[in-house]
């Protein structure tokens, strides 16, 4: 899988649900509209909850790839 374009990466490797989504929410404003955030986590719920958060918050879920160390990374684009 080709790596996605990420402007800000959040290290949530040691966090479990719902903390990765909370980190994402807290750091959304750290990027400009149109930029992307990658949430790096092995939390099993993130694959469902990051896209679900995007639908609730009307942000764009770009997709899933992996960070440099192979940990899953969930990428979100700030729309507003």
């Amino acid at each position: 899988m080709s790596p996605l374009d990420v402007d800000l990466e959040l290290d949530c490797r040691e966090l479990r649900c719902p903390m990765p989504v909370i980190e994402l929410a807290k750091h959304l404003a750290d990027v400009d509209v149109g930029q992307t955030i990658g949430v790096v986590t092995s939390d099993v719920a993130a694959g469902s909850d990051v896209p679900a958060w995007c639908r609730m918050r009307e942000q764009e879920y770009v997709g899933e790839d992996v960070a440099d160390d192979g940990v899953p990374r969930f990428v979100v684009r700030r729309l507003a």
Partner: protein
Amino acid sequence: MSNASAEPGPDARSELDSASSESLHPAAREALLAALDQGYADPRRLHRAGRTARLLLDNARAVVAECLDVRPDEVSFTGSGTEAVHRGLLGLLRGSRRGSTVVHSAVEHAAVRHAAAWGGEVSEVGCDELGRVRAGDLVEGADAPGAAVVALQSANHEVGTIQSVGELELPNDVPLFTDACASMGRLPLPGGWAAAAGSAHKWGGPAGVGVLLVRKGARWRNPFPHDDRIDERVAGFENVPGALAAAAALQAVVAERDTVNARQHALVDRVRSAVAQIPDAQVVGDPVDRLPHVVTFSFLYVDGEALVHALDRLGFGVASGSACAASTLEPSAVLAAMRVLTHGNVRLSLTRDTSDAEIDRLVAQLPGVVSDLRSEVGL
């Protein structure tokens, strides 16, 4: 012990997890105690005690058949709902002349999903955001080469959404297996299945009793070793007292369901609208076409395990589909398939005597519980 009729006090408890297991119905208790003494013998034997056990077992079968509007010879008693699922689904698979693929929905109970993966190839079909399985995709899966069986639940066990079991138009040689565990007794059994399963402790019967239904004429073959018992579809010594108690509970639940369902449906409506007022809450499942007693919701940024414990401390026993609250440590496959939040999740399932006062107390306390948990993580 819960006692819904007790005056609310500091120790008052509301057990709101009947979809996992409902307490024994009084009618079942009476039947069970009587049958423990009278139905202990081997129902295959010709002596008096054996004939009595056989009579009780036949009676239980006849009552269940009448309650479910099926023939008595279509009813088998198993050791659990899971065993009924295994035998029902895998028996249709074994009887198939067409292939070895089980086409099932992504929101089936784990018992169905595990049985399908164990028995054959799997073709999984998705659902919409309310948890309604896409019937067209099931039919398309059934039309594909190698499809042997389609499995579709009567209603979803986690979110309560009722599925369109009776309306599926499958090819003639692809039978339908219906896991009816979530709805049996509470709602009339839908039609269209070749085999179906139920679980007695979910309607107030005893644990350790399942109901397997196999339609007369269905191509069903025993997937497990044969046993020389009364009923060729099952194995092992018959649990006569359990079967009789399950039948007595089913009869009572069917007789009471018009009243109980209406009350539960209205109470769930109240919960749904109250929870929807809490910020960043998702109330999931079909709001109308649903089980009367089940409601599921999730709170953004809340830890499901912490939520279950907080509610327990306040006297509410609830289930959760969140990964951290699950024995598997996996998020609910149902919630994931519906593409809704899996964290901060609660499933309430009302009992036959859940009162207005209990629901008042719950909806009064929930907003505070949620905001406390959110403030703990700095939100």
